[in-house]
C-alpha cells in the first residue's frame, strides 16, 4: 500500500495547496507585513512627531485620562495604553459607548502633552495586518470561515507534503537549477523543508486562532447554541472578576496613584500595559490594570482589578494557572511574535518571506508540471491550466505590486480628502485587479516580464514619491539616523533591483529560446525552462 499511500498524499498535497493557494499567498504577504505593522504605521504617518520615550507611565496615563474626561465623559468604558516599546508607540486611548449608546472612539496622543497627534487619516500597517485574518470587503462570518478553511487546507497540505516527501532530509540539500520542472520542485522543497517547523507552528496556531469560528459546535454540545450559553463559556475561559453590569449612581473616580503603586509593587515599575476603567464616574466603576502580554511568548498577563470609587483591590489574576489556557496562549503568542526583539523579529520576517516563496513556487510548480504534460501528451484541461497560470502571474507578482500601490496612495492622496483611509485600500485592490486583468490579456511569458518590470517601477519609484511628498527622503533619513524611514526606502530599492533582474532575465530567456526544444518535446525533455523562469527569487514583499 505504501506506493499508493505516497501517491495519494501527493495528489492531496497538490489540490489542497492549489484550491485556496492565492488566498493563502495573500495571507502570507499581509501576515509577513504584519510583523512590521507599527513600523509601517510610522512610515504612513510621516508628519507624526517623534514620541519621547522617557515619559513616566503615571504621567502618560493621567494625560490619557484627562483627554478621555474631556472627549467621552459618558462612555461606558475607557482604555488607556501608555507608550511601550515598538508595540505601542504612542499614548493610546479608547472609549466605548455608555448606556444604550454603541459608539466608540479612540485618540492617539502625544504622551508628553496629552494632545492628539494630528496626522493624515490612514489605516496604516495595522490595517494591512488586519487583512491577514479579516480580509477586506467581506462580512466577519464569511471571512472567518474562508480564513479557517484556507488554514485547514494549508495544514493538510503540510502534512501530506511531509508524508509524500520520501527523501525529506537528503532532498533538502538538492537543488538542480535550469532544469525546468525539477528546479521548481527543488526550490519548493527547499523553501518548505527549511522553514517546516515555522510553517507547522504558524498554521496550527492559526487554526487555534480561528477555532471559535470553525469548531463552535463542540462548545454548543455542552453550553447550548444560545448567546447566553456561549457567553457563559467565554466568561469561564476569560474571566472578568468583579465585573458589574450596571453603572450605578454618579460617583467620583478614585485617583490612580494607589492602584498604580500596587501594580508597581507586584510587577515592578513600568509594567502596566493598559488601564481599563468600566463605568467611569459612577458608583460601580472598576479599574483594571493589565500587565504586558508582549513580554513573553505566553501572551498572557496578570491583572489587578480595583474598586473605582474606593480604590480597594477587588481581584487579582495571575498567569499560568491553567495549563490548557497556557497552551492556547503560547500558540497565539508564537504566532503573533509580539514578544520578539529585533533579531527574532528579523527571523520571523525571513520565515514569513520564505513561506510566501514556498506558496509561490508551489503554485508555479503546479502549472509547470501540467503544462509539460499537456504539451507532451495533450492530457489535461487547457482552460483550467490557463486560468491557474494567469492567476499565478497576477497574484505572485501582482499582489506585492498592489501593496506598493497602498503605499503610493498613502503619499499621493491629499491629507484633507475625507475618505482617504478607505481609498488607500481601494487603490491596493484596484491595482491587484488591474494586474490580474493584465495577466489575463497579455501573452503569458510577456506578462511575467511586464509584471516584474511594473513591480520594479512600483518599488523603485516609491522612495522618489516619498522624497517629493514629504521631507523625509532617503538622504535626510540617513543623515539623521532615522533607520525606519531609511530602511523602508532601502528595502523598496532592493526589491526593485531584484524585480528588475527577474524581468531582465525572463526577457532574455524569451528572446533566445532553445530552438531545438520543440523538436525534443516528445522525448520528455523538461520544457518548463522555455516558458517559466528558472527557480530563483520569487518571494518578494
Amino acid at each position: 500500500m505504501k506506493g499508493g499511500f505516497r501517491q495519494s498524499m501527493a495528489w492531496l498535497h497538490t489540490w489542497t495547496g492549489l484550491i485556496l493557494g492565492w488566498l493563502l499567498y495573500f495571507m502570507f504577504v499581509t501576515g509577513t507585513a504584519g510583523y512590521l505593522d507599527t513600523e509601517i504605521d510610522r512610515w504612513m504617518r510621516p508628519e507624526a512627531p517623534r514620541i519621547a520615550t522617557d515619559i513616566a507611565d503615571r504621567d502618560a496615563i493621567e494625560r490619557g485620562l484627562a483627554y478621555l474626561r474631556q472627549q467621552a465623559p459618558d462612555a461606558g468604558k475607557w482604555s488607556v495604553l501608555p507608550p511601550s516599546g515598538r508595540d505601542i508607540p504612542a499614548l493610546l486611548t479608547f472609549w466605548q459607548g455608555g448606556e444604550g449608546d454603541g459608539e466608540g472612539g479612540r485618540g492617539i496622543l502625544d504622551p508628553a502633552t496629552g494632545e492628539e497627534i494630528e496626522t493624515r487619516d490612514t489605516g496604516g500597517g495595522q490595517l494591512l495586518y488586519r487583512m491577514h485574518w479579516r480580509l477586506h470587503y467581506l462580512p466577519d462570518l464569511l471571512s472567518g470561515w474562508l480564513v479557517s478553511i484556507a488554514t485547514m487546507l494549508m495544514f493538510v497540505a503540510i502534512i501530506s507534503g511531509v508524508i509524500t516527501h520520501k527523501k525529506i532530509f537528503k532532498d533538502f540539500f538538492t537543488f538542480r537549477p535550469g532544469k525546468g520542472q525539477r528546479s521548481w520542485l527543488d526550490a519548493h522543497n527547499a523553501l518548505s523543508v527549511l522553514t517546516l517547523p515555522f510553517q507547522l507552528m504558524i498554521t496550527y496556531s492559526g487554526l487555534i486562532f480561528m477555532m471559535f469560528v470553525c469548531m463552535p459546535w463542540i462548545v454548543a454540545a455542552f453550553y447550548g447554541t444560545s448567546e447566553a450559553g456561549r457567553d457563559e463559556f467565554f466568561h469561564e475561559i476569560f474571566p472578568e472578576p468583579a465585573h458589574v453590569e450596571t453603572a450605578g449612581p454618579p460617583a467620583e473616580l478614585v485617583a490612580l496613584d494607589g492602584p498604580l503603586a500596587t501594580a508597581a509593587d507586584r510587577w515592578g515599575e513600568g509594567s502596566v500595559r493598559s488601564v481599563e476603567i468600566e463605568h467611569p464616574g459612577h458608583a460601580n466603576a472598576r479599574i483594571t490594570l493589565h500587565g504586558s502580554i508582549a513580554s513573553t511568548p505566553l501572551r498572557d498577563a496578570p491583572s489587578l482589578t480595583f474598586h473605582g470609587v474606593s480604590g480597594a483591590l477587588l481581584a487579582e489574576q495571575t498567569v499560568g494557572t491553567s495549563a490548557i489556557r497556557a497552551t492556547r496562549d503560547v500558540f497565539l503568542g508564537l504566532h503573533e511574535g509580539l514578544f520578539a526583539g529585533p533579531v527574532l523579529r528579523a527571523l520571523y520576517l525571513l520565515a514569513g518571506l520564505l513561506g510566501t516563496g514556498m506558496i509561490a513556487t508551489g503554485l508555479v510548480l503546479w502549472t509547470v508540471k501540467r503544462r509539460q504534460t499537456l504539451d507532451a501528451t495533450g492530457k489535461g484541461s487547457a482552460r483550467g491550466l490557463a486560468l491557474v497560470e494567469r492567476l499565478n502571474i497576477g497574484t505572485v507578482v501582482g499582489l506585492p505590486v498592489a501593496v506598493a500601490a497602498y503605499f503610493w496612495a498613502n503619499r499621493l492622496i491629499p491629507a484633507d480628502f475625507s475618505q482617504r483611509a478607505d481609498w488607500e485600500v481601494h487603490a491596493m485592490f484596484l491595482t491587484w485587479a488591474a494586474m490580474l486583468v493584465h495577466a489575463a490579456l497579455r501573452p503569458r511569458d510577456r506578462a511575467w516580464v511586464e509584471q516584474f518590470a511594473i513591480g520594479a517601477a512600483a518599488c523603485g519609484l516609491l522612495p522618489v514619491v516619498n522624497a517629493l511628498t514629504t521631507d523625509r527622503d532617503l538622504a535626510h533619513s540617513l543623515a539623521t539616523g532615522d533607520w525606519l524611514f531609511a530602511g523602508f526606502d532601502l528595502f523598496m530599492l532592493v526589491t526593485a533591483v531584484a524585480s528588475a533582474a527577474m524581468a531582465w532575465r525572463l526577457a532574455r530567456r524569451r528572446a533566445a529560446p532553445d530552438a531545438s526544444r520543440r523538436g525534443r518535446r516528445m522525448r520528455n525533455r523538461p520544457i518548463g525552462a522555455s516558458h517559466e523562469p528558472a527557480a530563483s527569487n520569487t518571494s518578494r514583499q
Partner: protein
Amino acid sequence: MAEPRRQRSRSSGPNRAWAAVTSRVLAATFGGYTLTHVASILLVFAVPASLSHAVLAAMMLSFVIYCVAIIWCFATRSAGRAWLGMLIPTAVLALPAWWLTGGLTP
C-alpha cells in the same frame, strides 16, 4: 500527479473518476467534520480539567482528528471505504457522546 486508486468498475471514464474524487471530497469535508466533532465531544470527558477548559483542549486537538480523517478519505482504496471510514466511527462514537452530554442541550 497520480490520483487515488479508482474503484474497479466496467465503465471507468473521466466522469467516473471525477465522481469518485468528488465523493471522497464530500466524505472528507462533511463526513470528516462530523466525525471530528463527535470525537472531540467525547474527548472532552477524557480531559481532567473543568468543563470549559476541557472543551478548550478538545477544540485545540480537533484539527489533528480532522486532518487524520481527511487523509484517510484520500488514502483508502475507494470512495465507498472513505464514507464508511467516516460514518461508522461517527455512529459508534455518537451514542456515548449523546448519552454523556444528556442529549444536545437546547
